[in-house]
């Protein structure tokens, strides 16, 4: 636990350093208004990273999050076109996203298929479904109602609703993971599935719940995304799942399961968010952005590996006289 905390501090420090570095050349970057923008821009990544983190905790991975987001976003846009009231749309995207997540989870649970295969498949199916729903057509800004587009941008106490949603999710899932039996079971199941079975936990069911959470968050983010950018089409958020997984890895979520925290996932997302926002400001090409994000992942994984090394040493202990 101490190592994780230290790691979180380290990452937070890296983020501050990054912001400080950019601010040294472009002081405008650290204006409160701009920092709010950066956070707001990163909110979808934070929401998905939290869901992904829970899935990874249970030794699974959800590659279908971005496709789920796109499908739910399109569903929201179409419902809006049919005149469905906004509260109902919000409820519907969360339920739809959760149901899509449940489809992943049930395949992993009941048929025992590896999650990477399941979600690679459903990822394509979800995108294909959007095409079937729309015939490839776009839903553009003028086809959306004003209220539909306005909600994520509405400002409360200096923060847009989208940021508030991210903050609420951080608080909610922090509590869930640290203060409820369900949260504890995610760690136990990922830490040692065999032992979890012998302790009376249902491993498959726990993994399925993780997928439902990840899916529901993707569904909600789908609405926020479509409403904020005021456009919905088959390929929105294409490839975004990789950024989500990257945020988790940078945030110190163990890819083998059983270790990680909400704070880590959020910091990982913020780190990528700051890079994505800062590099254009200091006029670095988007290709460099990819290289820099990639390097961050490699560094994070290296850090994880070196931190795990002392654990390997324990093997020697059995040889030593005790």
């Amino acid at each position, binding site marked *: 636990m101490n190592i994780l905390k230290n790691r979180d501090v380290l990452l937070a420090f890296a983020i501050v350093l990054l912001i400080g570095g950019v601010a040294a050349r472009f002081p405008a970057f650290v204006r409160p208004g701009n920092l709010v923008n950066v956070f707001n821009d990163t909110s979808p990544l934070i929401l998905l990273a939290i869901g992904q983190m829970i899935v990874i905790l249970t030794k699974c991975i959800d590659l279908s999050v971005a496709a789920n987001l796109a499908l739910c976003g399109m569903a929201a846009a179409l419902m809006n076109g049919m005149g469905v009231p906004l509260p109902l749309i919000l409820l519907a995207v969360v339920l739809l996203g959760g149901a899509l997540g449940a489809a992943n989870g049930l395949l992993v649970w009941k048929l025992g298929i590896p999650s990477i295969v399941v979600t690679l498949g459903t990822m394509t199916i979800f995108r294909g479904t959007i095409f079937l729903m729309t015939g490839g057509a776009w839903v553009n800004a003028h086809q959306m109602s004003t209220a539909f587009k306005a909600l994520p941008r509405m400002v409360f106490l200096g923060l847009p609703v989208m940021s508030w949603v991210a903050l609420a999710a951080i608080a909610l899932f922090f509590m869930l993971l640290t203060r*409820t*039996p369900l949260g504890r079971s995610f*760690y136990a199941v990922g830490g040692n599935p065999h032992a979890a079975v*012998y302790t009376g936990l*249902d491993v498959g069911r726990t993994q399925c719940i993780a997928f439902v959470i990840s899916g529901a968050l993707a569904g909600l983010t789908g609405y926020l995304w479509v409403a904020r950018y005021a456009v919905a089409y088959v390929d929105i958020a294409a490839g975004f799942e990789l950024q989500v997984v990257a945020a988790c890895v940078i945030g110190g979520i163990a890819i083998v399961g059983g270790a990680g925290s909400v704070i880590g996932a959020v910091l990982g997302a913020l780190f990528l968010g700051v890079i994505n926002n800062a590099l254009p400001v200091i006029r670095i090409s988007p290709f460099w952005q990819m290289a820099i994000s990639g390097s961050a992942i490699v560094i994070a994984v290296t850090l994880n590996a070196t931190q795990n090394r002392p654990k390997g040493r*324990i093997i020697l202990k059995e*040889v030593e006289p*005790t």
Partner: protein
Amino acid sequence: MEPILSLRGISKSFPGVKALQDVQLDLYPGQVTALIGENGAGKSTIVKVLTGIYQPEEGTITMDGQDLHFANAQDASKAGVTAIHQETVLFDELTVAENIWLGHAPRNRFGLIDKRAMRDGARDLLLGIGSDMDPDLRLGDLGIASKHLVAIARALSTDARVVVLDEPTAALSHKEIHELYDLVETLKAQGKAILFISHKFDEIFRIADRYTVFRDGQFVGAGAMQDVTEGQLVQMMVGRAVDQIFPTRTPQIGAPVLTVAGYDHPTEFADIRFTLHQGEILGFYGLVGAGRSEVMQALFGITTPSKGAVRIDDKFRVIRSTHDAISAGIVYVPEDRGRQGAIRGLPIFQNVTLPSLSRTGRGGFLRLAEEFKLARDYTRRLDLRAASLDQELGLLSGGNQQKVVIAKWLATKPRVIILDEPTKGIDIGSKAAVHEFMAELAAEGLAVIMVSSEIPEVLGMSDRVIVMREGRIVDEVTGGAMTPERLVRAAAGIAEAA
């Protein structure tokens, strides 16, 4: 006779600990030398020195009068030292012949692997150790005993003169163990020097010619087996006389707690019926694979029997999941602690409270203070050695991890506790502690089932013993009838002597 291989004055230390201090070891051609010592005595370390994995800080390794230095495992292998470990390092997807020749396969004149020479050579090697196994079989299709044969054939393919067998019988059944003994005889006849590491005294006395005892990383003594008794060896190992290993107890056997009737499983066991009483320790003896663990796993809801009933106190219980078992008051401490018991990445206190969260929490939320209290209460009872309960479980030693696993189950306040091979692979000192603790639990009125394959343990601890063979209960003995002969005969299916 001159030894093939001599180690003198070997010292090896790790940060903070001297694993070996000035130890010696001699291995003679055509003889089996047993290396004896408690866990942590330095047995594994010396094996690693011998096979070039560790380099000692001091000391000499002499082979045929020449001083050698093993810089790595290849050096040792070239010098003719080979080790066969408990879990053999072989490849399931390759054939028997490919496994034997991997890394030094015979080549044909084009420099390519000569399949025919490989297959013939493998067949010859296997015949040499008394096996007519087909070299084209896929290794993954073989049983453990056959894999051992392949490992030994592989060792011989490098012309090894010194063979180290590191607890080779730990995972074998009765029949397979006897096949291994025959194999050791074959190797002896070929003039190999064999170092045999085992915890089991009966097999040491059966196959070893010489012994060497280590204690706490130091050399204690060596000699010929015929000049030593079991008691003397134990005394050398522990450095004190051990006359009474098992706690004396006066069992207070009460009312029946658990009644199992007509338990059937399509493939694992049939017609299992027994009653367990309050305050009783019921031993389950049998050979490996007799179905004992399978019955216990069914009682604990891991597998589902096709037929049968379980009654706890006076209520019939349906056990379909571990959750059902735990709420019925049955808990199971599995044999494979590392895999099935401990969650190494979680802190100690969270491991303890995992099945008790509904009790320590309130209103669907966890209460960490309560969890700490529960964990502290139960780990203290087991005399757990840990810096803090917040420490990751994986940082503890094996024995302490097991204490945590047992504490986890006691914290659920069970009626019946099932211990599957509770002392397997732990040293004599820790064994005594576990036995002491089992006696305490029974005295407090818990009903205890102990599955064990060690006859002294079964006889020393149980009030009653059930013997299983091939999935069925074949004998049940109490009191004076509990003799080693009777248990072994029942387990092996040998008729009473006339």
